[in-house]
């Protein structure tokens, strides 16, 4: 028994090492070694930007872009606690503006817009309209109040008659810390519907479907980006932001389903 107990972990370790190595070689080309000549640019970005920014990061030449995706509110809180990424991109303009007012970031720029939609599983969904959300037994996931997607959702619900928004809120089963959590709950069938951005639905490759919200209820969703004060790579950060406003970043945003910044 003793001897076997020693052999087993060794075998398991070898197996794990093998799997890890296999995983590394799995994606076709040679593993992307960190380029010593390129500086590293750290970007804190809203979870909804993941697909567009990852694609933009591969195209971005001036630096090796590293991303930290989470709820914009969590990322802003990190910056308030002294964390210094080079760039902060949020799913609203309020958070970058607040950080600017506190002198923690440079003046923010609006670089994209988005639309809030109701997302439902593509197959076998119980929900086909906003009205269905008021029915008893329907389950809904929304963002927490502090994350932009959750605050936009509350704006939409606030524009409905009080009885309707109360009925919908009563069906909410989870208040997720970021949009990725809502999408995850939807694709796993844990809830019948959720409020997310139209770009999130596109990112699921057909697993989810969109139910448009009435125009009069649609909030103005604008994404703000700012250079963080004390950034280690200010020049590359500027270039990254410029590319978002017009350039490869803007193209990737469009491809991912984002809209041009809302006017006004």
């Amino acid at each position: 028994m003793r001897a076997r107990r020693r052999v087993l972990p060794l075998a398991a370790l070898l197996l794990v090492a093998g799997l890890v190595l296999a995983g590394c070689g799995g994606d076709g080309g040679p593993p992307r070694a960190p380029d010593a000549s390129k500086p590293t640019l750290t970007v804190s970005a809203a979870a909804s930007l993941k697909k567009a920014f990852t694609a933009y990061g591969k195209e971005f030449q001036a630096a090796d872009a590293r991303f930290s995706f989470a709820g914009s509110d969590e990322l802003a809180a990190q910056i308030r606690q002294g964390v210094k990424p080079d760039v902060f991109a949020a799913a609203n303009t309020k958070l970058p503006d607040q950080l600017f007012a506190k002198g923690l970031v440079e003046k923010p720029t609006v670089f994209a817009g988005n639309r809030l939609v109701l997302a439902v599983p593509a197959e076998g969904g119980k929900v086909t309209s906003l009205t269905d959300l008021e029915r008893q037994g329907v389950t809904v996931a929304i963002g927490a109040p502090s994350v932009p997607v959750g605050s936009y959702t509350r704006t939409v619900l606030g524009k409905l008659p009080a009885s309707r928004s109360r009925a919908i809120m009563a069906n909410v089963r989870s208040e997720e810390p970021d949009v990725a959590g809502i999408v995850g709950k939807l694709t796993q069938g844990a809830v019948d519907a959720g409020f997310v951005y139209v770009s999130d639905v596109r990112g699921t490759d057909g697993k989810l479907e969109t139910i448009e919200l009435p125009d009069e209820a649609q909030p103005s969703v604008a994404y703000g980006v700012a250079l963080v004060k004390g950034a280690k790579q200010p020049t590359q950060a500027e270039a990254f932001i410029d590319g978002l406003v017009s350039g490869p970043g803007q193209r990737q945003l469009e491809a991912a389903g984002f809209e041009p910044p809302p006017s006004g």
Partner: protein
Amino acid sequence: MASLATVLCFLTLPIVAIFVDTGPLELLASLREDGALEALRLSVVCSAIAIGIIVLVGTPAAYLLATRRFRGRATVVTLIEIPLVLPPAVAGIGLLAALGPNGLLGSLIDDAGIELVLTTAGVIVALTFVSAPFFLRQAQSAFEALDRTWLDASRTLGASEPRTFLAVAIPTAGPGLISGLALAWGRALGEFGATLMFAGSFRGVTQTVPLAIYQDFSTDFTGALALSAVLVAVSAALLLSVKLLGGSEWLGGAAR
């Protein structure tokens, strides 16, 4: 000596910082907020139920593992210990893949009329899954360390197998079992990732203290610190009471 000082500083500094940043008054004030109390109540209730289940089912299972020899026993032990090294996010996604609506047993659970995902029951499932191995492992070592002649004596004197287990094995292995219980309970109280992925986050239903801390962090850093301080205090009290209950055996049990 220097290395010990380094270890001590590194491990205690974040905990000290939590208490330095929050005064006792702020701590009390933050507790009066509804969300904090609800989260605390939920954490205590869910972890207590999870620990109850783990102890009831896990103690006899650990006893069998420790006292019986059967084919594949080593494999069983390893399989049971896997959740011990599993990242919580993996545990969460695994639970969804197994017990979620689209999961392996999803329709079975649904047909039985049981709702787990995004419910308090789901929190208990997640806590049980991630913390059970901590108890099982410790309980197994405690039972393995028992003097076999005591068990044999009990049997020779005519006691049935269940009676031997209840009257001899459990009391003798007591300190080891209690230390396992404390480790598992501490793990359950701190659970974050699996709960968020499997049970979601909803105040009063699935939002345990760690989830409430994460949500408060973005809007109310002081509140999040205060809630953290409470969790540290509860966990430390747990550890301390176990040390007192288990006496000097505690360390011996932990180290086998």
